[in-house]
């Protein structure tokens, strides 16, 4: 087991290298460079040159890459070209916000999907089942930005129940309640997609379990009794679901970009867009690296969990 984990980690390292190299190459293919952003008709060219020198942009690409790599290995992600803040701290303060949203969305998504999935399985092929299947499709097919816009339109603008964006009310005292209130809409925007995906999965998993106990539980008298008598079975059905949650994490990164932009949520999604627009190369590199590590880590954890849960899977 340990060999497997070590092997995966070792393999992940060249993969990460590959990712960073690809990123670097792509970024440097871009016409223009970060310094151009600050150009006004008055800016003396010498100043631009100086800035370029400072940022090391005149070095050959390979040199730039290895400088970056060297920095990385000493624990430094570099400094943002736009704001000169440490990339590490930039990402750090925003990562928390994205994770907050992500976790809230996951919990919400599962809270919606679990009961629906289980009920759909218990009442297989009923009208309820078909309706829920249709709805789960709608959930996965609706674009997140459209859903977000609709939510804002209905709940924030028309009904005025929820805020339009941001994490806190401006000028307000802050506080947990306020923050939660602000989290509702963006979480929903993310959660609906998650729920849609998971409902089918939970339903299928539950159906498998039900099939096994079908003869014993000839008449499903209701959910409560079923859970009581089949706690073990339910747990077995849920194990694959938990591992599948691991698969959602990469998707959340993608969703984060759009939702954060829409709701002005100060997470790494928003940072990504900002840094792309301002050609802030070092931040982009840092962001992609962090995201790749998270995705690879999530994959590894999922695989490990899966193998622990199902000892039949062998790794050589």
């Amino acid at each position, binding site marked *: 087991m340990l060999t497997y984990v070590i092997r995966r980690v070792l393999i*992940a390292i060249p993969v990460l290298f*590959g990712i960073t190299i690809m990123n670097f190459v792509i970024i440097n293919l871009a016409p223009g460079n970060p310094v151009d952003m600050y150009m006004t008709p008055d800016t003396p060219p010498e100043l631009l040159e100086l800035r370029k020198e400072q940022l090391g942009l005149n070095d050959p690409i390979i040199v730039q890459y290895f400088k970056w790599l060297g920095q990385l290995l000493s624990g430094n992600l570099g400094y943002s070209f736009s704001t000169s803040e440490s990339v590490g701290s930039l990402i750090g303060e925003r990562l928390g916000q994205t994770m907050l949203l992500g976790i809230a969305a996951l919990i919400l998504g599962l809270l919606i999907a679990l009961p629906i999935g289980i009920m759909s399985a218990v009442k297989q092929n009923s009208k309820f089942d078909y309706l829920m299947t249709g709805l789960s499709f709608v959930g*996965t097919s609706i674009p997140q930005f459209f859903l977000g816009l609709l939510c*804002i339109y209905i709940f924030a603008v028309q009904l005025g129940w929820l805020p339009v964006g941001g994490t806190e009310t401006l000028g307000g005292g802050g506080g947990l309640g306020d923050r939660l209130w602000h989290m509702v809409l963006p979480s929903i925007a993310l959660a609906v997609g998650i729920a849609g995906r998971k409902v089918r999965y939970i339903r299928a998993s539950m159906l498998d379990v039900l099939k096994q106990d079908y003869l014993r539980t000839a008449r499903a008298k209701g959910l409560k009794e079923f859970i009581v008598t089949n706690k073990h079975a339910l747990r077995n059905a849920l194990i694959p679901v938990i591992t599948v949650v691991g698969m959602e994490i990469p998707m959340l990164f*993608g969703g984060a970009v*759009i939702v954060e932009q829409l709701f002005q949520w100060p997470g790494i999604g928003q940072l990504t867009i900002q840094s792309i627009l301002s050609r802030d190369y070092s931040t982009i590199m840092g962001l992609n690296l962090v995201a790749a590590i998270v*995705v*690879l880590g999530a994959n590894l954890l999922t695989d490990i969990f899966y193998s622990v849960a199902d000892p039949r899977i062998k790794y050589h």
Partner: protein
Amino acid sequence: MSAVEAPVPVAGGVAIPAQPERSEGAFRQMARRFVKHKLAVVGFVVTLLLIFIAIFAPWLSPHSPYAVTAEFSAAPSASHWLGTDQVGRDVLARLLYATRVAVIVGFGTVAIYVTFGTVVGLLSAYLGGWVDLIVMRVTDMFMAFPYMMVILVVVSVLGPTLGTLVLVLALFSWPSIARLVRGSVLTLKQMDYVKAGIALGLSTPRIVFRHILPNALAPIIVNATFGVAAAIMAESGLSFLGMGVQPPTASWGNMLTDAQSISVMTDQPWLWLPPGIMILVTVLAINFVGDGLRDALDPKQ
């Protein structure tokens, strides 16, 4: 299908039909099972409709999507059924022409990545060894990329033209189908009929294309169908963020960009509700088709 026991030909015994009976082929059978899914059929019809709109957009729309008429941000009226946008262009026309973008992106992306991914997956599984190892590592690398983030970087760098968009989306979609095909082929390689083919002296290309690939097609087709929907979603998201199709070309995604402003959202719902609904309907329809295909092609009879 129940097994048919062969009656031994005996004079005066069981009658055997003079002409060979031809069982229905795989395609007919698939179509028959597909039709049983009402939602899938609806989705299929809607998809055809959308392709129709894409092709005949110039004839269907009352105005040009680029023409600026006098009124801007006008509410729906007799001459402009869905009103006009910020610049004064007819929203309905843009909506219809945007169908073209969706169809091109959807099917173009899939055509490219399915072809490439299938070939890579086939080669990787059949050749094994070094080739397989390298392909696996490369797909690992691509699949570890946080999709959206990297696409944003690439698109912003290379310039958001339709062509680059399709290529970039394809670039990040091929690894999963390569893995899929590789898995199928590895399983199929173990089938006795493949071994029989080798023992019979059939050439490798023949075994791959005549025996292995047809039996691996089902998941490829399903993946491709869902892939069309995913590509359309991705493009609309990118366009929404301003990193996709750029105005004046109309795309459902970029028609929604302006709705981020509250005033536009509240005062001009005709600007953003229709394109949003179009995306939803399109993606939904294609997903239904994919689901129907998945059931229809399921080997478990």
